[in-house]
């Protein structure tokens, strides 16, 4: 009876696991072949990877996506962190107002966020999309609220008396903030930054409504490419998918090793 139960459990979990990973793994396998469609196995080849890393169009698109993600995430982190600190020390009503407004982009559909920013900046105020301003602002709107949300709990857990002690010992408010508050909220700031990067990398809707016509992020590029019929580009994107998959696996493994180490240290103490 117990064994049968366990078999069911393993079956369900592996079904969901395979559903999530099989397409990516199949694509990874075919990215190392010369075939243009899945199902027909032809010779082994690294052509797709060569195209991916040498075609100027593809390289530009990948670099552009990364530059955008890190720029937007940096701005998001500065704004969101300052916002969280300000909100934490403000009167209850103001702080509640900030937190409520902060929830809007979090809950809103990305289509509506992207479209509304385009309407305000591009249609109503006439800012040109070619300045990249609407695109960067759009991605900061996506990221900053999550920085705010990851910093605020750290401020609440913080021991407030250390800040007061620093002031009593002669530190200026700025020094106290930098040397006392910042270290205590740093983990929240960093995870907010990482989150902003991933949100920007994964975004399609804000980019499509605000980006310059000549600029593409990975998402907008891939969406266009799947509609087109250029086989070399299509299969080069399989290679890109495989590269990103391995990068994500490495990052996750690294994070796990780090937490495992920390847990190990904790156990010793």
């Amino acid at each position, binding site marked *: 009876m117990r064994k049968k139960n366990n078999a069911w459990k393993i079956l369900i979990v592996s079904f969901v696991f395979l559903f999530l990973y099989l397409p990516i793994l199949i694509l990874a396998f075919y990215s190392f072949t010369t075939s243009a469609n899945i199902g027909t196995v032809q010779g082994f080849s690294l052509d797709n990877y060569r195209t991916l890393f040498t075609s100027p169009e593809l390289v530009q698109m990948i670099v552009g996506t990364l530059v955008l993600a890190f720029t937007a995430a940096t701005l998001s982190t500065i*704004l969101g962190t300052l916002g969280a600190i300000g909100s934490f020390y403000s009167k209850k009503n103001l702080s509640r107002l900030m937190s409520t407004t902060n929830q809007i982009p979090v809950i809103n559909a990305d289509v509506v966020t992207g479209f509304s920013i385009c309407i305000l900046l591009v249609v109503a105020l006439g800012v040109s999309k070619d300045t990249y301003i609407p695109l960067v602002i759009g991605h900061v709107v996506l990221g900053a609220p999550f920085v705010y949300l990851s910093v605020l709990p750290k401020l609440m857990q913080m021991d407030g008396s250390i800040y007061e002690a620093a002031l009593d010992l002669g530190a200026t408010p700025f020094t106290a903030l930098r040397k006392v508050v910042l270290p205590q909220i740093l983990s929240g700031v960093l995870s907010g930054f990482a989150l902003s990067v991933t949100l920007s990398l994964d975004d399609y809707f804000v980019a499509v409504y605000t980006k310059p016509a000549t600029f593409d992020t990975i998402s907008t590029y891939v969406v266009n490419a799947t509609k087109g019929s250029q086989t070399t580009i299509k299969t080069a994107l399989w290679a890109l998918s495989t590269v990103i998959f391995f990068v994500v696996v490495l990052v996750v493994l690294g994070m796990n090793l780090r937490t495992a180490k920390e847990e190990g240290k904790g156990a010793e103490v």
Partner: protein
Amino acid sequence: MKNMSFSRKSLGIPYLLFLSLFVVAPLLVLFYYGFTNGSGRFTFENLTDFFTNPNTLGTLCYSLALALVTTLVCLLLAYPTAYILATSKLKRRSVVIMLFVMPMWINFSLRITALKEVLTWIEGNLAYYPFLNSVIGMTYDFLPFMILPIFNTITRLDPALLEAARDLGADEKEAFLKVTLPLSMPGVISGVSMVFLPAMTNYVVLDMLYNSTYIMGSLIGSYFSAYNWHGGSMISLILLVMICLFTLFTKTEEENPRGGALL
């Protein structure tokens, strides 16, 4: 002393300005464009057009149906998975759940490309089963967002509650139905809100699967391509109202899985 506390508060001013300019103002502009016509005159036409045009009403019904079915399928796959993982005696549960959450960090467009290639290989032409493929595509995209919050609520349950249920004579099935299931509802609700709304609006998944059918988000896209800002703003407003209603009904203390994903 008063001066110093003022300086800390004032750090929030840039973000407050940012939120008013780029979060609140865009929504107000949507109201302006939604309730005016091309010559800038106030009108209810965009609103009445939406509710009298059989095409747009059909799109609304289709997206509601698609979102409902997608949410149900996600729930049916995610709940057992999250439950089995959360209650398993595996030593490194956090690593295992990471495997199920990891797809969130791979660019969705590349994942959908992978899914599309595999589905094309299996089915031939994807246009034969538009509804089925839409559900598969959206489930594939959103499933991790359903698994994570349910897993989190179940792992946080106090094991003493289940022991108490058993001591009081409940068998495993009863204990699940009367203790675990009701107490895991916040996670379920949080997951549902992460799947239902995107399933109504995330039309790019359907676009990529060569789907000719329209959902609410697609309407904004097609008004945008036609430079019809007024029509597009009205659709955005209608979606906003639905999102507000939905959020009121599903309000929980559970953190947003998009943010919680970083663990």
